[in-house]
């Protein structure tokens, strides 16, 4: 078990390299038309001073960003057990098809007959996602999970509005273990958020839920398995409680990787589902996006989906804008098609059997790891004792912290020193000193065993030489970062321009 070293370039800002007159781009000559056209644009509409952009050659640009890339860590670099983010391997074949001209060089407003390939991919992916989730129609428009959540909330809103109940139904119920986006989306959709607690088993407290529902209930947002990695066993009861109260059930698909081919949100009674194609369906996360958060609904909500829907009339695929109660649009155009086509390729290559294996192995990996981590001094796995986890589990190192001062954050930073990305930490908020660990099906047993060894070593260090852990990371491109200073009003620096003003006294 060796420590790792990340590249440590002293790479200046792009603004500090280059030289006046250099550039990295060649542009077709203007001579072929008429330069005097410029004089048509009146002086008062023209830019007076050129933008203060860097002046660098292509050589310098490529070196600069190549060095920066070496100071970044992706799924291809090593284990990335970031809970709830499903950092699985991104098959290279999917990138290859996403870079075809037929994906890159198409304009969304082209006539439908020239976009039959794109529409066919969208239509078939819609059908497959319906089959995988047990829903009846998908919109691929949302660009991310949170965008999908907003779409779902807008559908809930439109549904109650149509039934003339929106004035009364003002509340969305969210468990205390929910992703932060759930309450934020509900609130963006104009609803109030009612939080229900989890019980000792790590699931929604059913009695508390019964007390929370009322004629004011518009719906419930639920992740299943939840953020503790525990399956909400009493989902049918939950479903009845919400439906009996006249609310709708929204499924946050962030954790869908755990139950592919095993159970479907549609069969659990959910009315609306979003999936994260950049999690479950392997599309690369690109350092923060683009993603895709398609939203699927049951038959009775089909007419509320965003426009346009993709349909097939037996001969050709077409865009259907004639959706009677449609909420309209949630994003420009139809979808992030370069993401959609990767997910399409993924399902086409793994098939039904592959999807099932993905869930089985991701769950097996998580439980294997959980059983080993729970034996490490200072760590425990609270909630739902003895219950199998699904694709992820949440460990607490509150024991370690009280005995050694070493916190979840310190453990996370020390993991980086061994070339392992940190788990999600301090989430869900109901677990003290939480480390949310999701190995995914892509981790090999060798990597899992290595991870366990590293965690054992960190525990040992915490008890014997806590300074080493408290001062981590040591082996990354930079040491511990001053995040307080970064957000302090006096030192806040969000652009080169602000930097010059604040620190260069320009």
């Amino acid at each position, binding site marked *: 078990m060796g420590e790792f070293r990340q590249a440590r370039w002293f790479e200046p800002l792009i603004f500090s390299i280059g030289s006046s007159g250099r550039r990295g781009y060649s542009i077709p000559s203007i001579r072929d038309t008429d330069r005097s056209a410029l004089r048509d644009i009146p002086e*008062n509409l023209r830019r007076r001073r050129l933008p203060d952009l860097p002046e660098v050659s292509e050589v310098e640009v490529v070196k600069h960003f190549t060095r*920066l890339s070496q100071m970044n860590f992706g799924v291809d670099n090593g284990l990335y057990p970031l809970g709830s983010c499903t950092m699985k391997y991104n098959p290279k074949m999917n990138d290859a098809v996403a870079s075809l001209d037929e994906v890159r060089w198409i304009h969304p407003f082209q006539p439908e007959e020239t976009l039959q390939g794109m529409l066919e991919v969208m239509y078939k992916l819609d059908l497959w996602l319906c089959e995988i989730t047990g829903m009846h129609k998908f919109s691929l428009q949302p660009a991310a999970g949170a965008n999908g959540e907003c779409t779902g909330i807008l559908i809930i809103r439109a549904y109650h509005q149509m039934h003339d109940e929106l004035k009364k139904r003002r509340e969305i119920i969210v468990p205390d273990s929910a992703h932060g986006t759930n309450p934020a989306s509900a609130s963006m959709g104009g609803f109030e958020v009612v939080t229900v607690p989890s019980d000792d088993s790590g699931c929604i407290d059913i009695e508390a839920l019964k007390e929370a529902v009322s004629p004011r209930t518009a719906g419930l947002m639920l992740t299943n398995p939840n953020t503790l990695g525990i399956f909400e066993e009493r989902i049918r009861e939950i479903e009845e409680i919400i439906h009996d109260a006249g609310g709708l059930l929204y499924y946050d698909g962030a954790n869908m990787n755990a139950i592919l081919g095993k159970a479907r949100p549609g069969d659990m009674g959910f009315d609306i589902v979003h999936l994260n194609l950049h999690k479950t369906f392997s599309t690369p996360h690109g350092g923060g996006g683009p993603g895709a958060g398609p939203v699927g609904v049951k038959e009775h909500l089909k007419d509320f989906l965003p426009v346009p829907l993709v349909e097939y009339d037996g001969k050709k695929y077409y865009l259907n804008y004639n959706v009677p109660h449609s909420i309209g649009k949630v994003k420009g155009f139809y979808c992030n098609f370069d993401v959609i086509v990767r997910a399409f390729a993924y399902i086409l290559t793994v098939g039904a059997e592959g999807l099932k294996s993905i869930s089985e192995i991701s769950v097996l990996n998580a439980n294997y790891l959980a059983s080993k981590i729970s034996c490490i001094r200072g760590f425990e796995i609270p909630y739902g004792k003895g219950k199998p986890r699904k694709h992820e589990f949440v460990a607490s190192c509150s024991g370690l912290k009280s005995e050694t001062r070493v916190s979840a954050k310190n453990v996370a930073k020390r993991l980086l020193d061994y070339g392992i990305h940190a788990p999600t930490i301090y989430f869900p908020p109901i677990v003290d000193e939480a480390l949310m660990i999701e190995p995914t099906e892509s981790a090999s047993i060798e990597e899992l065993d290595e991870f366990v060894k590293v965690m054992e070593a960190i525990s040992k260090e915490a008890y014997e030489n806590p300074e080493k852990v408290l001062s981590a990371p040591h082996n990354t491109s930079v040491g511990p970062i001053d995040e307080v200073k970064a957000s302090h009003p006096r030192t806040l620096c969000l652009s080169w321009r602000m930097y010059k003003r604040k620190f260069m006294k320009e």
Partner: protein
Amino acid sequence: MHDQYIPNDTEEIRKKMMDAIGIKEIDELFSDISEEIRLKRDLNLPNPLSELEAKREIEKVLKKNLTVKEMTCFLGAGAWPHHVPAAVDYISSRSEFLTSYTPYQPEISQGILQSLFEYQSMICELLDMDVANCSMYGWPSSLGEAARMAARVTRRNEFLVPHYISRDKLMVLKNYAEPAGIRIIEVNQSLRNGQIDMEDLKRKVSNRTSGVYVENPSYLGFLIESPEEIAEVVHDAGGLFLVGVDPISLGVLRPPGDYGADIAIGEGQPLGNYMNGGSLLGIFACRGEDYLIRQMPGRIIGMTTTLDGKRQAFCMVLQTREQHIRRHRATSNICTNEALYALRAAVYMALLGPRGFQELGEIIISRTRFLIEKLSQINGVRVPFFDAHHFKEFTVNFDGSSKPLREINRRLLEKGIIGGKDLTSEFPELGQTSLYCVTEMHTLQEIESLCESLKEALEA
């Protein structure tokens, strides 16, 4: 076939791991899913294909698309064909960037953090603004978030937009605005030259106005002649001035910060991103006052130092605005954004530099004028519809011809040309009008051939 992606999916390893956790069957791990909701059949999906077969199959399906390389396409209206330098593809395909998550652990993610800080910084220079976030889902989403931000900053709820904006964009805006109790009010624009009707604007602006939004160049390609006057009206009423831009224009046209914009948004797709059938990069920037910055949506990267103060370093900042900390009180629910497109835009802006943007802008203006001149020589064509200066896009009206626009576009398509976007349903008052777009990608031959084909189509 899936085995190649799942290293532990062999019988031997499965058994070894199941033994280790004390189970005999894999289904024991799913025993908490009740019989009632357990899926008792296989998913009905196509049989899995090998990489070779799958690639062939997808290529076969996608071949049914006709690309703008195979045809000549004059569509814009929110997504535009621009050349993408090879270096942009090269950098953005580096897997350290491509396969990383949002940089929650800054010490191991300095690469994407510094790149996004540089993206923000270059956007600020181009737009002449102080602060930018590291992306929204696209221009329409940026507009929705901007309307909500204006309402938070001013605690007012009337948001004014020009009549001539994309109906699709307006639909997105409404979905952000209405649940927040924001009323969208349209301001008239002159049918002659597209300029904002100042009398109408003054009538509609009041102490309830959170902001006035304009686009420059507008959705229909014409330029706003005196944006300062609009800024003055809204500022006098205590509201914010918001401007939407095409960043490609800013090497030659005045940037929004230069004429009083408080919030500037736009579409970053032209900056080194393919159209991808409509993948977008939402630009979002504002002035540097603290009360504005605190209300910004989305991820923002800041520059700081290491704790020992020895090294410059970067991390996400002001996270107390965001959903994972503030939950239902967050400024927005956005987390996953369009970071990789922003990285591409950063590489693109660095490659172009100030002179590149200037020359590119000049070429586009020159091409725009060339195409307008050529088209205006055709009988039955009124171009541009609006008597104003245009950049990259302009309106072409066919009321003087006996042919409906739909038929003209169909005849062009037969010649391998995709004409401008049909605006008849969006703006019926403009008659048989379409929106044409021309960029550095269009050659003079393509422009000539469009004019020839149009003539034929009109005479046929």
